[in-house]
């Protein structure tokens, strides 16, 4: 599903910073992997490249078998809209839209009519136990609820890949466990997932942990997440 070949990325700030130094990575369809590493090791940079939010300097990135390189703004927007779902640490919900409207927004950019997209959005909210909160605005929701809304928004277009940058970073351990449980359930429907995290407890709930250090993949750890009781809090 995702294949990275010798990806390099340098930020040209005050002084050039070589962040990714030849990343090779393969994530298979339906796989759930996590990326760990020290702060500044390039996790977010890598995830942004995967999400076509940022471009890379050299190497090749194949998504769903297609080379993602030098896409136009429109092509990139289309791929993001249809193939990828994003979950952010800070939720990034639109404050003046209700939970339902937030979830429905990606469908707006697919020109789905309002009735239809609100109906689909409701189905997803219901699935995440947020039916009663559909008409609430983000500032009326708890962190866990907000993250569930944002997961619903990520899934509403039925993407192939979910990219999550520290999805539990702003949540307490109990809510983190709930969120992970949901992600796990989503994963079981066959969606590929890449999660950036600082917390080992989260990483252990994924199939593979990719350890990033100074812009290269240090090692890949294989887990057996099925042995973990997901209802337990994360330490």
């Amino acid at each position, binding site marked *: 599903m995702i294949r990275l070949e010798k990806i390099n990325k340098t930020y040209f700030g005050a002084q050039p910073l070589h962040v990714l130094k030849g990343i090779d990575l393969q994530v298979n369809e339906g796989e759930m992997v996590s990326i760990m590493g020290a702060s500044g090791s390039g996790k977010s940079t890598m995830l942004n490249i995967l999400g076509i*939010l940022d471009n890379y300097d050299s190497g090749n990135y194949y998504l769903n078998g297609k080379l993602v390189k030098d896409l136009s703004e429109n092509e990139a927007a289309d791929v993001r809209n249809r193939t990828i779902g994003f979950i952010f640490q800070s939720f990034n919900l*639109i404050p003046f839209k209700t939970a339902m409207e937030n979830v429905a927004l990606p469908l707006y*950019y697919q020109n789905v009519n*309002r009735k239809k997209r609100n109906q689909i959005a409701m189905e997803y909210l219901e699935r995440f136990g947020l039916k009663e909160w559909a008409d609430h605005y983000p500032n009326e929701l708890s962190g866990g609820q907000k993250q569930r809304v944002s997961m619903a928004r990520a899934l509403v277009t039925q993407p192939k890949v979910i990219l999550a940058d520290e999805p539990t970073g702003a949540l307490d351990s109990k809510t983190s466990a709930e969120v992970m449980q949901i992600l796990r359930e989503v994963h079981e429907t066959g969606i590929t997932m890449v999660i950036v995290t600082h917390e080992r407890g989260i990483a252990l709930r994924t199939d593979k942990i990719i350890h990033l250090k100074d812009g290269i993949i240090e090692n890949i750890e294989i887990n057996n997440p099925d042995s973990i009781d997901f209802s337990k809090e994360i330490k």
Partner: protein
Amino acid sequence: MFDFDGIHEIWQTITRNKTRSLLTAFGVFWGIFLLVVLSSTGNGFENGLMQQVEGVTPNTAFFFTGETSEPYKGYQKGRSWSMQMADLEAIKETFPCVKAISPEASVWSSEDKNVIYGSRGGSFSVKGVLPEYNTIEKSKILKGRFINDTDISANRKVCLLGKKVYETMFERGEDPLGKMVKVNGIYFQVVGVIRSYTDNVNINGSIDESVILPYTTMQQVYALGDKIRFFAIVADDETPITDIEEDLKQLIKQRHDIAPTDEDAINSFNVSEIFKAFKGLFFGIHILIWIVGLGTLMSGIIGVSNIMLVTVKERTREIGVRRAIGAKPKDIIGQVLSESLLLTTLAGLVGLCIGVGIMAIVGSITANMPSDNMMFQEPYMSFKAAVAATVIVIISGLLAGVLPALRAIQIKAIDAIREE
């Protein structure tokens, strides 16, 4: 882009910050409102003034004699001369385009009461005219008839009374027709009552305050002889009066042995030039009004543009998120442009409606005022101007959105994630 769904989406962002949107829209509202009110007011004055001038047929010129200023054919300069009825006949023959021609002679009385009927009396001017005078200075016959050809040929001692003269000399509702009125010591039979078309334009004093006699009777009674010092002509609509004004003067000069180059012997002025001057004046006023209105509108538009720029900056994150979940640059441009367009158009239309509404009220108030010589009539904006204003608002709404829209598409999806 402009479907209902899109409007809902845009409306949501506009109403999110209601106070700001209202304040922003106010500039545009005010610009259009001002434009409507000023332009309607300008129209009101123009209509009012034009109605005043309507009392005189536009294609009219007046001629009056003066002393000659050049010696010619043995005559000294400084000669006093006058025209005769025969001159008027000659003019009619030479210029078939002359529709009406009439001399006018006036006599003012120094007496306290020169017009007397029964125990009543008053001091009024006395005018002598030909029947055709009625088409030169428009008037309304309230009772009876105007001077006719028989009055002229028979030097009949008949008269018309101006409205004020009638009101002074007779009881309210009393029938004056056939009554004998004493004017400067001589009795005349009243054949009509006349009112001027408007109070503001008169030739040699208001018709309302005059007693009108047949010209020939006047000449006879006041021993004027066959002398004409003042006459007026109306040309048909195909012939601008200015085209014949000079030729006509030359004809008269020739008939009276006056040097063709003599500028002072015969003078004239024509109404069409006055009309033109008024039209020019109001054209200038309208241009001024549009400059003021559009200037105000412009500052309103710049206000909208400015606020939208700030808004776009504030919405960096929101726009970034939209980009991340699949909004294309054209979606973002469309959204910002539509927001600006919707805000401006709404504000403009509200300004237009309120302006038109207020002027409709003002118009109906002035229309109901009893005076029939209002200087202010039908203060309404022309439909064309309203359409133009609307089009300008729409275009400027789009223009106001251009800069903010360009700024908005600079925002990349990644900015949403970075800006914590």
